């Protein structure tokens, strides 16, 4: 196993915990995701933060699956080092998840004895096994289900109140509410005998949201002004589209399901050419197909946003699991010199801000922008402090009709100091032009002249290089001469490792890059002032982020690469250990 054995750190936890993690596993039909969602809702009602991620087998129906929850007194987007509780409605193939659900001697295994004993793989961690007759208990409630029994038990062993459980069941269940309540109550009543964990009291209440990274990205896009979306279904980006489809209808926009990703990106480009801010969402295989047309967006200067919810690659890879392996293609995949924008959200909530920012950058610079989210953020549902998004005021620079007869012909690609030229929108008379992927002159007419090519290359590069991202380019936290350098979903465990180090009196800095292209070498230089050692953290096999940093940035002499491919997320403890290494 890659990660630190959980038993070594489990003992660090105090009797009242700041965070409790539970996994609920079972085969298709067991309803583990439904129960998990209700449990997360109960934690939210009780006033806690938390998040739920999921893992599943390859089957469409009937496969094994696990809902993985973490409930905490502090905002978190990351998983803990291990799980306090593994509950299983049955044990069919659950061992496949063993690496994703680390247990230790202080962990608790809950299972229905009627489904057999827990697999040895779990028992040998030293975790305590407490049998709970889920099926038999469910049979005592008319219409009762074992997953609702498990829900009650888990709420009990985590130390959530019966009131919050009750309210969550009422809020979440669409049907059979009484049966659900009865079963959940019965399960809850079993917890005292089993014994469990005590969460610290919840923090003071503020307005909170329950949102997935995919939903947050979708909402951020709409806040940014996106009103046209074309996309082709792909795991794990589909939920983003399923969020956007009805949402767009409510606000006067449109979503089109395209025949493939080649069509999606070109539909988005066509709509954007028509003046409507446009977006598509996909994952690695789809991004690969879109690359040629992203180059068209660069050359013809048509804004468009692509959200890439990364999954493991290459090829089909592991479609349901997370990896940060698309960094190379997002940064360098386009043929020719094609300056564009790449941003990466570094929390579930930041999926909103980063995507909204990407729309603003794309629109204001008339360029494609790629948002590198991933399956971990995309499909995680998190309880977060309310995200106070404002509607973007950034607008595309539009051309207006020339005044008077004999005005000079409109130059769509006029050379300007900023590199951005006023864009004519179809419908406006007197400034018609052809948007072209062929190299062109200022008027947009095809040109094979070296001077035109150079002038347009300079212009397109200039508008990107002159971008001033302000403080948004990175999240910088902490002090010290050791720095964690990362992006995207690796930021969550990095933040927790940082907090752990600070609690131990160790100073450490975190720089999580949100703007990956264009590179910001001067800013990083300032952010790393005084740093002697950097730990570059990323979830891919070859160290794509490190290679990018090495090519674009000056790094301190001592560089440690902490990387592995998906799908196992980094655990805070393994990062912490790297920090405190002499």
């Amino acid at each position, binding site marked *: 196993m890659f990660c630190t054995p959980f038993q070594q750190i489990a003992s660090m936890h105090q009797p009242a915990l700041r965070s409790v993690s539970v996994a609920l596993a079972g085969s298709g039909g067991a309803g583990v995701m439904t129960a998990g969602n209700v449990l997360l809702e109960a934690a939210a009602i009780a006033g806690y933060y938390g998040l739920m991620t999921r893992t599943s087998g390859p089957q469409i129906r009937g496969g094994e699956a696990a809902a993985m929850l973490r409930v905490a007194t502090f905002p978190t987007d990351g998983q803990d080092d291990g799980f306090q509780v593994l509950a299983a409605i049955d044990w069919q193939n659950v061992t496949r998840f063993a690496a994703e659900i680390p247990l230790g001697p202080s962990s608790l295994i809950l299972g229905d004895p009627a489904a057999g004993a827990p697999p040895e793989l779990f028992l040998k961690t030293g975790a305590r096994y407490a049998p709970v007759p889920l099926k038999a208990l469910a049979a005592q409630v008319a219409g009762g289900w074992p997953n609702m029994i498990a829900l009650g038990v888990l709420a009990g062993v985590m130390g959530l109140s019966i009131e919050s459980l009750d309210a969550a069941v009422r809020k979440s269940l669409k049907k059979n509410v009484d049966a659900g309540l009865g079963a959940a109550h019965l399960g809850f009543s079993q917890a005292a005998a089993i014994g469990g964990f005590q969460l610290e009291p919840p923090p003071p209440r503020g307005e909170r949201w329950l949102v997935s990274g995919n939903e947050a990205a979708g909402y951020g896009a709409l806040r940014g002004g996106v009103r046209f979306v*074309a996309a082709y279904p792909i795991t794990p980006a589909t939920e983003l589209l399923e969020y956007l489809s009805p949402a767009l209808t*409510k606000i006067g926009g449109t979503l089109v399901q395209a025949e493939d990703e080649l069509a999606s990106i070109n539909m988005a480009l066509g709509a*954007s050419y028509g003046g409507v801010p*446009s977006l598509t969402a996909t994952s690695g295989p789809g991004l690969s197909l879109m690359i040629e047309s992203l180059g068209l967006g660069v050359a013809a200067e048509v804004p468009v946003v692509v959200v890439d919810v990364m999954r493991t690659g290459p090829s089909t890879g592991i479609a349901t699991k997370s990896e940060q392996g698309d960094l190379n293609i997002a940064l360098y995949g386009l043929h020719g010199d094609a300056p564009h924008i790449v941003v990466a959200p570094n929390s579930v909530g930041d999926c909103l801000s980063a995507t909204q920012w990407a729309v603003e950058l794309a629109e204001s610079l008339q360029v494609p922008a790629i948002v590198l989210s991933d399956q971990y953020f995309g499909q995680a549902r998190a309880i977060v402090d309310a995200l106070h998004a404002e509607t973007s005021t950034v607008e595309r620079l539009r051309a207006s009709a020339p005044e008077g007869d004999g005005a000079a012909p409109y130059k769509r690609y006029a050379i300007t100091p900023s590199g951005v030229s006023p864009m004519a929108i179809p*419908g406006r008379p007197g400034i018609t032009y*052809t948007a072209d*992927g062929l190299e062109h002159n200022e008027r947009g007419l095809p040109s094979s002249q070296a001077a035109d090519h150079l002038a347009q290359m300079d212009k397109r590069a200039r508008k990107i290089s002159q971008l001033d991202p302000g403080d948004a380019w990175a999240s910088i936290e902490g002090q010290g001469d050791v720095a964690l350098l990362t992006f995207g979903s690796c930021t969550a465990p990095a933040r927790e490792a940082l907090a752990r180090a600070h609690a131990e009196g160790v100073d450490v800095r975190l720089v999580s890059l949100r703007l990956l292209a264009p590179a910001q070498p001067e800013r990083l230089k300032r952010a790393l002032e005084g740093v002697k050692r950097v730990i570059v953290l990323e979830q891919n096999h070859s160290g794509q982020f490190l290679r990018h940093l090495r090519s674009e940035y000056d790094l301190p002499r001592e560089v440690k690469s902490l990387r592995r491919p998906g799908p196992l997320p980094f655990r805070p403890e393994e990062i912490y250990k790297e920090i405190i290494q002499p």
Partner: protein
Amino acid sequence: MNASTAAAPLQAKDFKSDYKPVWCPGCGDYSVLVAITKAFAALSLKPENVAVVSGIGCSSRIPAYTNCYGFHGVHGRSLPAATGLKIARPELTVIVASGDGDGYSIGGNHFLHACRRNVDLTYIVMDNHVYGMTKGQPSPTTEPDWTSKLAPAGTGVREFHPLVIALASGANFIARAFSGDPNGCAHTIAEAVRHPGFSFVEILSPCVTFRPDQRGWKDVVHPAPVPETDDPGRAARRLMTDDGFNIGILYRGARPPYHPKGQAEQRHVAELEAEFRL
């Protein structure tokens, strides 16, 4: 300029740009360009309300030769770009220009789905049975025994039948025209633009450089011997027995054009926060 001349209807030449075509002298596409501009004039359109969208190839050079808004995109993807534009800006007249390589080969999948989707577009394919811009390779409509450097013994592969495919996929208007008759082309294009939904106009447009034999097309094209039909069954029979040189409107369907599903509301985007709030 006085009021009366300002209001004068636009003529075909008012839809032409001052940018000169690179097509070989003698090319059928010159005629198609004239036909398109004549159709625009006959439809009393204004250049700013028309968008001409294309992919890559000789025929796809057309947008910049018009005075309308143009979009010259990547190879094979003109239909998706046009679809996005028309759905986002339904008030525009959107014309798509393509060729047999761009439209039937690399863009073949989009052709099927554009027919099926039935967005109100006019799709003009200039078919010369050859790739011109890459120097004369066989295209999907090339005869199996036509020899070239890339296929010295011919492809041995039967031709694609775009009109049959269009009908089977749901196109709402299917016509064939011949570039040797620019006015006939203009008439057909105008009818295609007028007809709601996805209108497909295949224009036989000889390539004088790589297919000089196509100069003979003027002697073999002939008006379709039967009038147009709105019955897909009859149209299917007719198209399956088509000799490839029937000219005219062959099918005019009555399928309602694509309209995004769902009642478009105009609520403020901030209202969407409600569903996330705990």
